């Protein structure tokens, strides 16, 4: 599909259906809030441009996730300057209220923050698999986005989950 109206319709559909998922994806790749906003814009821009070549040979979801992960991967492996310290404050996480029902909410916020910290440490291919898994994308669809086999995806998910759980509790054990 290459006509302007079709491109606008596709972009509208993608932004509406996957907008929130793309925000979470950007958070999985960039911990600095300002850079994350830039990355999200870059992803949307890449999506808009890419729809000039969308021919329907794969599903819209696969296309959107490929464009988003490939753009984010380019962002991650680009040489960095002024990288923020690990675990820099996150504006979205900060915006979750502390007081509502006290400790459980605060614990949830900390757990989420820690989970993203651990995801940031993964290599791009593992990160891609894990972020898609966390979006409830099934193994076959993850395979289509990443180019891995479905069996390989399932194995990777299992290993990465184990790794994340171990690291998560190691840090808790360290009194973090």
């Amino acid at each position, binding site marked *: 599909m290459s006509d302007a109206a079709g491109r606008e319709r596709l972009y509208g559909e993608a932004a509406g259906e996957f907008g929130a998922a793309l925000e979470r994806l950007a958070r999985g790749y960039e911990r600095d809030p300002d850079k994350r906003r830039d990355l999200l814009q870059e992803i949307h821009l890449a999506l808009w*441009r890419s729809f000039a070549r969308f021919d329907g040979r794969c599903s819209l979801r696969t296309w959107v996730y*490929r464009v988003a992960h490939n753009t984010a*991967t*380019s962002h991650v*492996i680009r040489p960095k300057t002024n990288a923020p310290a690990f675990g820099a404050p996150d504006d979205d996480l900060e915006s979750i209220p502390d007081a509502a029902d006290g400790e459980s909410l605060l614990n949830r916020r900390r757990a989420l923050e820690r989970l993203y910290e651990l995801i940031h440490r993964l290599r791009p291919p593992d990160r891609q698999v894990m972020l898609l898994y966390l979006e409830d994308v099934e193994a076959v669809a993850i395979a289509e986005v990443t180019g891995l086999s479905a069996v390989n995806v399932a194995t990777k998910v299992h290993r990465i989950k184990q790794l994340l759980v171990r690291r998560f509790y190691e840090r808790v054990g360290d009194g973090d």
Partner: protein
Amino acid sequence: MTLDAIKVRAQQFDRANRRTWALTGALFLLILIVEAWQVWRGNNILERTGDLLQIAALVYCAYQFRDYYAVEPKAATLGVTASVDFYRRQLARQHELASRPWRYLVAFVPGVTLSLFSRALDRPFAQNLAIAAFGVALFLGVAWVNMRTARKLRREVDSLG
């Protein structure tokens, strides 16, 4: 982001891209003109030959890097490339650039050597030796850093299977 905001961003991006390429080209041309002017005005034939060879090396490297940047991922291809393949290609491209530093460094050796040694007879031996040692160390240092980066990238590509 709204559709209008995306369209505006796309136009801004294109304009900024064109501006960057135009500025880079203008700067490169300016360097060439200044260098050529110095060659034209110089008296020492060895030094002038050395400067000319350095200009040629600069043009060669600019051409090589132009090829490198020309294969930057285009948005249209992002949707048709599986993400692990895309990552592998990006790493392979960086590896290709880092693994053969001699391809760029050697181009400068004749010009720099001629330029430096054209005035060697006017300087004490120890100074010439120090300059030569510094030059060799600099070239080897750059090559070593590149080779180390290339080895890391190779390992990462291999680990992807």
